[in-house]
């Protein structure tokens, strides 16, 4: 058999396994973080420290019946959860976990990730439409307008990084940050002294946008339980709902790993010692912890507050940041 086919299959299987395991562990982590922030314990009964709780939940979801509501668009209704899941898995293709561990070294990797990730919005719209449920439609419309609003500042800040590094290849972006934390793009003191003031702003805008892009609290208006039942997945039961969950956590992972690759030096060690996949995972899971921490600290914003934050603050700031970045790259 062609070794290339085996390689592709191997990566595909391990990505899907990683997405599932990652989601299971993140659900556990989320519940633990939520518990301790509220001074509770969180899951503790199933397995040591409740580690097997999400597997028990997963088995429960898999045994449940998939119910298709009356008047739903049946083919779309069944395809939509997979459409949420597939882009999430596809995004992993370009993410370099370490120098050797990357499925594909594509020289427009950054562009490809944004292209694939925006399919997710389309899937959410389909979900809302196919469910034949007014709450799902409202939620889908919210999710789409939110994603459109936050894609703009996110892409603009990504462009500042591309301008600074001069490449869209994620491998090269990380390789350019080798050596130590003073070489990282968030604080590039050794490369360009002017960018020291701009890059933290870029990182903050990027991080807020990736939180909003993945529909995480405090921007989870698509899932506002108090007004929209459960949001776009109201009509889904069993593993249909489970796939949305897997997709959401995979997207959180992708958002955080992009932030790590672009700003925090990817798999590079902060002190220039033993770079590798462990550093990448430590940084990504730390950022995911920050995302969870924010979720359990802040209440959900209003919809106008959400759009105002994007159009009135993040977009002007990111545009100004872009212009200044261009100037600083020339000047310093």
């Amino acid at each position, binding site marked *: 058999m062609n070794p290339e086919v085996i390689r592709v299959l191997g990566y595909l299987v391990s990505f899907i396994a990683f997405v599932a395991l990652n989601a299971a562990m993140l659900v556990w982590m989320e519940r633990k973080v939520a518990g301790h922030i509220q001074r509770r*314990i969180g899951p503790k009964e199933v397995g040591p420290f409740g580690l097997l709780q999400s597997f028990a939940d997963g088995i429960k979801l898999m045994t449940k019946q998939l119910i298709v509501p009356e008047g739903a668009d049946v083919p779309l209704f069944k395809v939509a959860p997979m459409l949420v899941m597939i882009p999430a898995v596809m995004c992993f293709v370009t993410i370099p976990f370490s120098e050797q561990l990357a499925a594909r070294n594509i020289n427009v990797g950054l562009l490809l990730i944004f292209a694939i990730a925006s399919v997710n919005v389309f899937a959410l719209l389909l979900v809302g439409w196919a469910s034949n449920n007014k709450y799902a439609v409202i939620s889908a419309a919210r999710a789409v307008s939110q994603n459109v609003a936050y894609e703009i500042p996110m892409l603009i800040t990504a462009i500042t990084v591309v301008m600074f590094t001069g490449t869209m290849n994620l491998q090269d972006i990380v390789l350019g940050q080798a050596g130590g934390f003073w070489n990282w793009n968030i604080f590039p003191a050794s490369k360009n002294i002017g960018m020291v003031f701009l890059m933290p702003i870029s990182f903050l805008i990027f991080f807020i946008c990736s939180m909003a892009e993945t529909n995480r609290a405090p921007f989870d208006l698509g899932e506002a339980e108090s007004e929209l039942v459960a949001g776009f997945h109201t009509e889904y039961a069993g593993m249909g709902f489970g796939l949305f969950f897997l997709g959401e956590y995979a997207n959180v992972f992708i958002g955080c790993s992009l932030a790590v690759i672009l700003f925090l030096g990817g798999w590079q060690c902060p002190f220039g010692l033993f770079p590798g996949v462990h550093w990448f995972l430590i940084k990504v899971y730390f950022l995911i912890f920050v995302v969870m921490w924010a979720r359990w600290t802040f209440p959900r914003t209003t919809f106008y507050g959400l759009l105002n934050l994007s159009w009135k603050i993040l977009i002007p700031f990111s545009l100004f940041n872009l212009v200044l970045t261009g100037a600083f790259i020339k000047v310093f």
Partner: protein
Amino acid sequence: MGGYFKEIFDGAYSLVTGMGVTLKYLFQPVVTEQYPHVVPTIPDRFRGHIELVGNEETGAPLCIVCGMCQKACPSGCITVAGEKVEGVKGKVLTQYTLDFTKCSLCGICVESCKPGAINFSKDYNLAGLRKEEFIYDLKKRLEEQKR
């Protein structure tokens, strides 16, 4: 224009303060009690369902079957019965049933009891599957406690 930046700065500052508060909470010890695993310390004035008080030495119920509790109970939960036994002064308790499905834990029975033969228990595990499980035979309960 100044208001615009001030709003952003104040907003960001309040968000960071909030994150600080939750981070502090994250590392503080948990305050919840793990219900089935941990037995809580029940306060002295806790009102469980009533129970009979036994004599400290013999363990026999202090109840003299006067029937005051049965009369005092506004919901009619209590049924007391006794009989005369040769050589014992007064009546001897043969039955003391509490229908806990009707009891509202008002405590008038405890107040009305002259010899102090009934008391609030500290029992808080009160789940059951059938209505009959909540009709307690308090005499049997006292005998079981004695053993």
